[in-house]
């Protein structure tokens, strides 16, 4: 294991991407993710890679499409309003079945919103964001170490399934420093026979395209894509269970709010409250099975989110509304305190649901 260094979450993403073999990055500055671009600007020239600050987010995502078409690993990053601008390009990447990594270090919205941390792009990233039937793999890190390791994972999954992987972080995760080991291990290489690498007059032309004017063909493409998504839902779900063995109340939280919730859970446990947490690491594919199983044991669920209640819909669907699900949230750049979460846990433990 390599020596641990203190790094900002944003920098850890950038370095991990390079370690994962991403030598092409296109971006446009926006708080609170600017350190990703700044780090890339410093490192890429030294390794013979490409760092390019595009004239806009729209331009950057289209450059990503270009590099992805050649089969090379490529990344862009932004924060909420910037990711909205990239939505068209993400839909095109999906329609062309191209692998790429898109990082969203979320801030408060809607509109220009604010620059403080938020989780209110959950719908945007897990349900689409752009037009058409498609999915992104969405990974939600909750430590600087995971900012690095899940970035490596994102590249792997993007290549494995030929699609977009997103890192769904937030301003806190991007700005905070923690010890991180950048030993990424062996990087898997995937064959990309579809890539535009020049035929050298030795093979048929490859075509990367998302336009299908015959509806019969487009329908087949969509069906095929959803077979792939089904396999991902089967094989790639990641989550962490915390003190769930005897839990009667189940907290569900990802990213920064899962860390706040951990403080509250420890405090509640010290007072004898049987509470645990399921932390989705992949928010798509969503950890439905473990949640449904928890619904048979727990009396109630609490979603801790920095949104008006977005993931809570997935929780209710996953547990098929078998038990009540309560929301504990702050929005607009505010972060819930452990005391607020603890109060909700106590309230739900006393009044919520019934065996």
């Amino acid at each position: 294991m390599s020596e641990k260094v203190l790094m900002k979450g944003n920098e850890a993403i950038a370095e991990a991407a390079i370690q994962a073999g991403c030598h092409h990055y296109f971006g446009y500055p926006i708080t609170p993710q600017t350190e990703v671009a700044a780090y890339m600007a410093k490192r890429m020239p030294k390794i013979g890679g490409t760092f390019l600050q595009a004239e806009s987010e729209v331009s950057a995502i289209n450059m990503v499409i270009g590099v992805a078409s050649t089969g090379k690993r490529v990344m862009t990053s932004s924060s909420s309003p910037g990711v909205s601008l990239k939505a068209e390009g993400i839909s095109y990447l999906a329609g062309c079945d191209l692998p790429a990594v898109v990082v969203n270090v979320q801030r408060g919205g809607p509109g220009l919103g604010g620059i403080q941390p938020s989780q209110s792009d959950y719908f945007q990233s897990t349900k689409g964001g752009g037009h058409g039937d498609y999915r992104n793999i969405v990974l939600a890190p909750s430590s600087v170490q995971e900012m690095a390791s899940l970035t490596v994972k994102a590249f792997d999954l993007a290549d494995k399934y030929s699609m977009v992987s997103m890192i769904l972080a937030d301003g806190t995760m991007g700005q905070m420093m923690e010890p991180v080991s950048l030993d990424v291990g062996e990087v898997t290489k995937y064959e990309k026979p579809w890539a535009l690498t020049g035929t050298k007059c030795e093979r048929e032309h490859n075509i990367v395209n998302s336009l299908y004017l015959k509806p019969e063909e487009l329908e087949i493409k969509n069906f095929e894509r959803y077979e792939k998504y089904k396999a991902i839902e089967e094989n790639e779900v990641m989550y962490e269970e915390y003190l769930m063995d005897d839990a009667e109340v189940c907290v569900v939280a990802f990213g920064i709010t899962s860390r706040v919730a951990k403080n509250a859970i420890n405090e509640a446990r010290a007072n004898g409250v049987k509470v645990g947490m399921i932390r989705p690491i992949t928010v798509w594919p969503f950890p439905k099975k473990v949640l449904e199983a928890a619904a048979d044991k727990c009396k109630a669920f609490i979603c801790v989110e920095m949104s008006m209640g977005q993931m809570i819909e997935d929780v209710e669907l996953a547990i098929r509304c078998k038990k009540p699900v309560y929301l504990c949230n702050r929005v607009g750049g505010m972060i819930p305190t452990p005391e607020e979460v603890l109060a909700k846990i106590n309230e739900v433990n006393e009044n919520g649901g019934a065996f």
Partner: protein
Amino acid sequence: MSKTCRLLFAGFGGQGILFAGKFLAYKGLIEDKQVSWLPSYGPEMRGGTANCSVIISDEPIGSPIVDAPDVLIAMNLPSLEKYENSVVSGGKIFVDSTLIDKKVERTDVDVYYIPATQMAYDNNIKTLANMIITGKVLKEVESFSLDNVDAALKKVVSARKIELLGVNETAIKSGYDYAE
């Protein structure tokens, strides 16, 4: 002192608030502790107040946000006024008494007044009031010491400014030795 120490450094942008916090975090890392460092990055850091949350612990760190610090380092008046009441009972407040005339009103905390900015001027290291006050923190907070100061400084002082290693050490030492 519990096994977890939550510190809040607060002052003006440019006083080296984030740097001092990073130094302590690195010192913790070298000593095999769990550490986290979280800066304010809002509009306030652009010339206004800056602060950073640092947690040093024997256990895995949950939330990196310090709402109720065990230790507050206040390097300007707005910071003291804003955070004085958030310090836990029995906690410690370090005040740069050159820049803050006001006395701490709380009676349930230990308070240390250090004329850090004046000392920095007197010693011709005028940008290092942050490290002088940090030296005092190392002295007064039980779980801290002068161990690994050198190693931690080498991690945070950039290679381009390596000649500043010595003055940082001097600053820490003078804060450590300061008696009110």
